Each structure stands twice: as C-alpha cells, then as structure tokens.
C-alpha cells in the first residue's frame, strides 16, 4: 500500500460508559473510494466525526495526510471536505453565496470564482442564484457536495450521502463521486447503508460491528474471498456472522 492518506491506530471513543469505537486500526491509501459499512449504532458517524475534527477521541490516534486530527486540527481541516448527513445549508442564502462563504472560511482567495467553477463542474450552475431554502433534497445534496469540494480538498468525507435521494439522485451522486475521484484525485471516505452503491462505486470497504472493525479489504478481494455469495448484501451478512 502506498503512503496511507487516512490512518487510524487503536482509535477509541466512549460516550459516558458506552464504548462506541473499540481500538479501530485502519489505513486507507490515496485515491481510494472507501465504503464504511455497519449497522445503525455501529460507530460509523462517530468515527467520521473524529476524522473531520468535530469530536475528540477518548483513545488512540487518527491522522489525515500525516496530520493528527487532534493536535494538527488546522492542517487537517485544510485537507478535508465534509458532507454531513441531512445538511440543510443556509436557507436564506443562494447556492453561490453559501459556497462563497464556506470557501472563504477554508482560505480560498478567489471564493467567487471557486464557487462558480465548482457549480459548473457539478453541472448545477443553474442553481447558483437560487435560495437554498427552496431546494429539494436532491438539489441540496448537490450543493452539499459542492461546499465540500469548493476548496479542492484531498480527502472527501460523505456521511450517508444517498439518504433521502430518489434513484436518479443516487445514480447522479455515484457518478459525481467517481468523477471527483478520477478528475481531482480525491480520496473518498463514505459512510453508507446502500450496499448496491458500495459495490458500484467503492474500491475498498470496511465493516464496523458494535464499534469494532471486523472486516477491511478491497472490493475485488472481497468478491474473490466470498465467491458463493450472490451480492454484497449477502457478503455483509456473512461477515457479520463470522465476527467474533
């Protein structure tokens, strides 16, 4: 594996007495599209919150592009873009205004141009002057992705990005993720329940079960390892059964 862009070493997190991440070790190479799978409450969002510097882990370390998420927060936040689940953005601002504001906070000098180019790149220039408060879920999600990449981060975090999207929206999102990975070389870390999407878009997967990483491998190796399973859903169930 080349130099890992995301690395977790013995990562732990505890909410009061509840241990939700248990010594998670994980390395993700540059250019991967990583699908993080797990049941509700497995600890996926907690892990993502730690990696995006929103939450301080109670144990272990995590680095992004070699920077520690706790001690080098400033550097880490320059390398990442983040789309939280069910983001609504600033409804009173237009799509372009939302992007400009967030781009400036990320240190982009010509935020207006960056916002326009990002909207053009994602094929939603027509939304630029419309207020985000009037957008549908799909439109909001596209603007959500736009704000996450407006400063051209190296790593993109997507938390349940297909949640609430119709089939067309899901397909569009998948194509966008692949486009970002291909054109801009972004490493993508995606929390998701949509196993069908994972098999189509991800290059590697990890499965979290009650805070423990029970599986981590490339999609190709996974399909080779479970030749008898018809779909990723079956593999996911199988992996869960094999967990200690």
């Amino acid at each position: 594996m080349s130099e890992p862009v995301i690395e977790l070493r013995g990562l732990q997190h505890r909410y009061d007495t509840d241990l939700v991440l248990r010594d998670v070790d994980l390395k993700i190479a540059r250019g991967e599209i990583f699908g993080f799978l797990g049941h509700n409450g497995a600890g996926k969002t907690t892990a993502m919150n730690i990696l995006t510097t929103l939450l301080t882990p109670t144990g272990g370390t995590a680095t992004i592009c070699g920077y520690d998420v706790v001690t080098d927060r400033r550097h880490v936040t320059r390398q990442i873009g983040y789309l939280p689940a069910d983001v609504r953005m600033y409804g009173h601002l237009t799509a372009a205004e939302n992007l400009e504001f967030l781009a400036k906070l990320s240190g982009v000098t010509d935020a207006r141009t960056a916002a326009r180019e990002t909207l053009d790149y994602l094929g939603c220039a027509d939304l630029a002057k419309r207020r985000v408060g009037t957008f549908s879920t799909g439109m909001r999600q596209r603007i959500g992705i736009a704000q996450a990449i407006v400063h051209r981060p190296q790593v993109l975090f997507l938390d349940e990005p297909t949640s609430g999207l119709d089939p067309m929206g899901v397909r569009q999102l998948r194509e966008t993720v692949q486009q970002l990975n291909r054109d801009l070389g972004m490493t993508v870390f995606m929390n998701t329940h949509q196993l069908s999407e994972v098999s189509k878009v991800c290059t590697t997967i990890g499965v979290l079960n009650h805070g423990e990483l029970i599986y981590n491998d490339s999609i190709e190796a996974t399909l080779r390892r479970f030749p008898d399973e018809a779909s990723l859903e079956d593999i996911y169930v199988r992996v869960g059964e094999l967990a200690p």
Partner: protein
Amino acid sequence: MSESSTRILQVARHEYRAALRSRALTVLLVILVTATAVSVFVSATDYASQLAEYDAYRAAAQAQGLTRIAPSPLAVLSLLRGAFEYMEIIGAIIAITLGYLSVSRERTNRTLPLLRSRPLTGTELATGSFLGALGIFTTLIAATAAVGVVALGTIGHDWISPPQTLRLTLACVAALLYLSAFYCLGAIATAKVKVPANGLLIALGIWLLVVLILPQIGDTLDADNQLPGGLFQALGLNHDGEVAVLTHFTGYERVRTGIEEASLAKHFERFAFAMSDVKERYRPYGLPWLLNETRNDIGWLLAYATVLFLGLRRTLTRQQPIPTGGIS
C-alpha cells in the same frame, strides 16, 4: 490581514447579513425605531413651544435693557429619555433575539459541522458572531440616534452642539456595551440547552429580572423617589447634601445599591441619563465630572459585556458540533 482575521470578518459579515434578513428581527427593529421616533417627535413638539416661550422672554428682557437674563432651563438632550428607555427594554429583547437566532440558525440548518470542519476555531466563530452583532447594534443605535437628533433639530428647533454630540456618542457606546451583553446572554442560553427555544425563554426570564424587576425594587427603595420631584430637592439639598444625608443610612443604601448594581439595565440607564441631561442634578456639571461620577456604571457595563463575551467564547469553543444523533 491574517487568515484568522479574514475568517473572523467573514463570520461577522455573514452574521450581519443573516440578521438583516430575519423577519422577526426586522419587526423588532421597526418597533424600536418607530417607538423612539414617536417619543422624540412628541417631546420635541412640546420642547419647541417651551423654547419659543424662552426666546420670547429673552427678547423681551433684552428689549427692556436687562443685563442679567436667566439661562434656559431646557435641556435638549433630555428629550432623548424615551429613546434610551426603549433601548433599555426593547433593545435588550432585540439583542437576546439576535443571540438566539445566531445559535439556533446553525443548529436548525445543521451547518455547525460545516463550519467546524474548516480551519475555523471556536474563538474565531464566537468573535466573528459577536462582531456581526456589534455591526447590527451600531446600525440600530446610529439609526435611533439619527432619528432623535433630526427630530430635535427640525421639530424642536434646537440642533445639538458638538459637546452634546460627544456626550450622546458616549451614551451610544454605553448602549452598544449593554446590547452586546444581552446578545451574549441570548447566545449562551441557546447554546447551553438542547431545545433552542428554551434558551430564548431562559434569556428572556433573566431579562425580566435584570431589566424590569431589580431596577424597580431599587427605585422603590430609593429615598429620593419617595416624593414626586425628589425628596432631596424638596428638602432643598444639592448633590453634596444628598451624599451627606445618605452617609447616615449606609447599611440600607448598600443593600439597595447592591440590588441596583446587579442590574445591567440600571447601569446603562444611569450612564445614559447622566450623559443626556435627563437627571437635573447632573446638568450643571461638565463632561469630566460626569465621567468621574458615572465611572462605576460604565465599568460595570464593560465588565458585564466582557464576562459574557468570554462566556460565549467558552461555550462555542466547547460546543461539540456533532450532527444529528451523536452515535450511529
């Protein structure tokens, strides 16, 4: 300009624009400016007739060759009393609402994770939001003062002089500190509770205590307020005489003063009234004496605003910007 300053200014600008686009806030702002305008228009109309009477007296006295003419008993700045009282009550509600909206907007839109996953620290966020609110308050106070001054000049026929402008400016600075403190209170209360609306209710409860209840208790216990026009004036005592009498009631006065000093509103009122000639006993004195006399009040205003800002900074820095759910 440093990157940190740029981010702070961006947040401030964002806060300012968002506040101006809030309907609730706009309604409150219109109510405040309208109430101020009506109050100043009415008192300026009355003032104009009193001024005309005084001018007629002075003209008659000069015509009769009198060399000693009584100075005007009128104090044009005192007509702004209503403006300061509305600022004290409605202004504080506006400031609390602005603080509430500032925090609840990020929560409702779920945008806090977007901000905090960028190179923006809690301190920068708090400072930027605070500066944005200061911008709104400056606009509000400037608009209110402009309405008042123009009404005094055009309706009251008495434009304020440069020294009076300086005193009015100082009163406006005190208003800025006063509103800033309530902004921080609204934002802290909202950030501390799970349901933002509960934060607003808590802040309004504190407003009720600080702006209405405590000053009322203090006023009721004030010996000077026991007679219409003032007890000490009825007794023919000046400020020094009043101070001399009160030295015999130090324990009582300490308790009463303690209650009043707990009230941010009272400090603002005392300072603003001293600067605007509302209290007759202050009228004979110049600005240096007034500043010395009210240093305690401006000190308390500054202390309240500073402590609450530090509280806001601490609250926003410690606030975990977790998206919905927490664990999943």
